[in-house]
């Protein structure tokens, strides 16, 4: 260990570390622009310059690459340091007067208007992009080119790079937003979409699956993680202070001997693009109820604002289509049982957010089976400006001028064909037993019924018992139902299992 002082504070550091690392570890701030924890020090922005006294001699050095020495005295804010930094920032602001990061940094040193000739660049030539591509990604798709005044960041021969893997690391590390992936790669940039937010926003390759995940720890998506694809990168390792990144972790199979099993494998959503007439995936402003749910959620990708996909505008006129894939001889024959009520809830929420928003719900039959459910619907009509239209729309098209979806349907009361142009359409698609239901049932030799739900031989007296003693099923894996019903069944299954286990003894 090495002893040194930074701004008068005595600190110890490991030999071979640099002043900047030690300062930051001791909560002493030194500004940087070209420094990155995962990259070799570059020493180009010179902003991290500090004044040192080494063997009795005062010197200005860059802290990012000056190794600590015994007895070193470091001043991170001497007059000479501050004066120099101020000039560096004034020069950078003259180069990039419109880059917010530089504006803010300069302002923090009292510079608002440079005294120099202004340019309008947004690249500060810190080289982070090229360095991460070479040092960490092992690709070298971009690099510096030219020298002196002509120095810039470029792809070879200024042509979009064939070897670029499209990982986006360059754009990600760029502190000024100067790097646009589409200018660099010859590939179509494809973001990794968040499953939890139903593809509404991208996520990184290392991520917490959703806020309530148990256990709530990040996972690495091996399908897309550059390290697992190429062996390079490993940047997360540099940043995790707990040293918790483990690239060698494998899935584990745990064998356990049990006496009773409760099956609660839940549901998946039916793919609405299978219902071709509704144009999901083609008409931009047609979304699913789950996407809507994430959008209207305060913790969702749009922080609770409704933004339609085509242009981000808030819709004024909203249509919900019920039974998308449910009660349909071409798709699923059964009623998904929860959609009438959740569509009503979503319509009410929309109106609460935007009082001038008008919602229409196109339904087959109103299935408000439950206490006060009918009253809820009445309130939606009376207080929240929701209109229920009894009709199954035949198709949805797009108005090419404004991207508005047009809902084509039969006015069943008047028996006329008509259409309605709205700003956005929400499809309430069918719910289906989750994919794992079939796998587990096969494993346990349980039968499935015609709709692929777990078969319950005696629904009346033993509503959670499967055909095999000791195996119980609750929730959506055995029939469509809402949350309260699932909770009731879960309690029942637990009680039945307890009863079964006590009999065993």
């Amino acid at each position, binding site marked *: 260990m090495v002893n040194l002082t930074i701004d008068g504070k005595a600190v110890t550091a490991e030999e071979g570390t640099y002043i900047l690392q030690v300062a930051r570890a001791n909560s002493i701030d030194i500004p940087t622009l070209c420094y990155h924890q995962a990259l070799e020090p570059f020493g180009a922005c010179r902003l991290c310059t500090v004044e040192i006294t080494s063997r009795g001699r005062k010197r200005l050095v860059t802290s990012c690459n000056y190794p600590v020495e015994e007895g070193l005295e470091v001043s991170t804010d001497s007059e000479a340091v501050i004066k120099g930094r101020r000039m560096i920032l004034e020069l950078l602001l003259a180069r990039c007067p419109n880059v917010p990061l530089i504006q803010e940094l300069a302002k923090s040193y009292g510079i608002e208007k440079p005294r120099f000739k202004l340019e309008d660049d947004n690249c500060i030539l810190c080289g982070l992009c*090229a360095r991460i591509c*070479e040092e960490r990604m092992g*690709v*070298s*798709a*971009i*690099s*510096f*080119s*030219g*020298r002196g005044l*002509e120095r810039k960041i*470029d*792809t*070879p*021969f200024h*042509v979009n*790079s064939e*070897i670029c893997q499209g990982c986006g690391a360059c754009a990600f590390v760029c502190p000024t937003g100067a790097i646009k992936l589409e200018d660099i790669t010859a590939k179509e940039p494809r973001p990794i979409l968040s499953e939890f937010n139903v593809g509404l926003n991208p996520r990184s390759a290392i991520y917490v699956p959703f806020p309530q995940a148990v256990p709530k720890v990040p996972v690495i998506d091996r399908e897309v993680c550059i390290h697992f694809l190429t062996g390079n990168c490993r940047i997360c390792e540099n940043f995790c202070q707990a040293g918790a990144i483990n690239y060698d972790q494998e899935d584990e199979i745990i064998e356990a001997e049990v006496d009773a099993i409760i099956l609660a494998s839940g549901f998946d959503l039916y793919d609405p693009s299978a219902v071709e007439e509704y144009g999901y995936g083609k008409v931009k402003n047609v979304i699913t109820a789950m996407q809507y749910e994430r959008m209207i959620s305060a913790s969702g990708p749009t922080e609770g604002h409704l933004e339609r996909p085509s242009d981000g505008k808030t819709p004024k006129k909203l249509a919900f289509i019920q039974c998308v894939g449910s009660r349909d001889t071409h798709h699923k024959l059964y009623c998904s049982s929860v959609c009438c009520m959740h569509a009503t809830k979503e319509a009410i929420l929309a109106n609460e957010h935007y009082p001038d928003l008008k919602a229409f719900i196109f339904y087959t039959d109103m299935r408000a089976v439950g206490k006060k459910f009918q009253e809820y619907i009445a309130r939606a009509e009376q207080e929240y400006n929701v209109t229920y239209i009894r009709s199954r729309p035949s198709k949805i098209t797009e108005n090419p001028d404004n991207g508005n979806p047009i809902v084509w349907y039969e006015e069943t009361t008047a028996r006329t064909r008509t259409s309605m142009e709205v700003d956005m359409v929400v499809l309430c698609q069918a719910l289906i037993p989750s994919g794992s239901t079939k796998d587990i049932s096969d494993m346990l030799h349980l039968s499935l019924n015609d709709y692929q739900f777990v078969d319950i031989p005696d629904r009346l007296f033993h509503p959670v018992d499967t055909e095999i003693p000791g195996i119980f099923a609750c929730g959506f894996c055995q029939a469509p139902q809402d949350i309260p019903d699932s909770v009731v069944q879960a309690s029942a299954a637990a009680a039945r299992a307890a009863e079964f286990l006590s009999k065993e003894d």
Partner: protein
Amino acid sequence: MTTEEISRIDKIIDKYEGEEGILIQLLLDIQQELNWIPKEVAERISQRLNIPQSQIYRVASFYTAMSLTPRGRHLVSVCMGTACHIRGSPRLLDRITDILKIQPGETSPDRSFTLNTVNCLGCCALGPVMVVDGKYHGKIAPTEAEEVLKNYD
């Protein structure tokens, strides 16, 4: 590139295969052979020696001895060294850009001339100096430039 050109380039690359740190030497040889470094050549080097194209491009764009655009039939270099500068090379250069209608670093559209400035030719006694295709013209006044350039087309 023609197969003949590829084999010419390959021959140069062969000289350096398996050696480290040779990129600059290799590119200098290619510059001498072709008078410029085309994209296809960079691709070829990248393929054969497993050097990223970006590194080749970076080197070729960094050094003045290498050109990423084809050069003209005649190379006119005007010395802008200090000795030549104080003996009036800026005025000479002005006159030459006027005559050739190109700026330093450019090649005339008909590829007849490429105009370059150089930092010192090591014959300061002759300043200001211009060199056309390796022939030195020393102590040359701006008014004499046209006379010299007339001999080339």
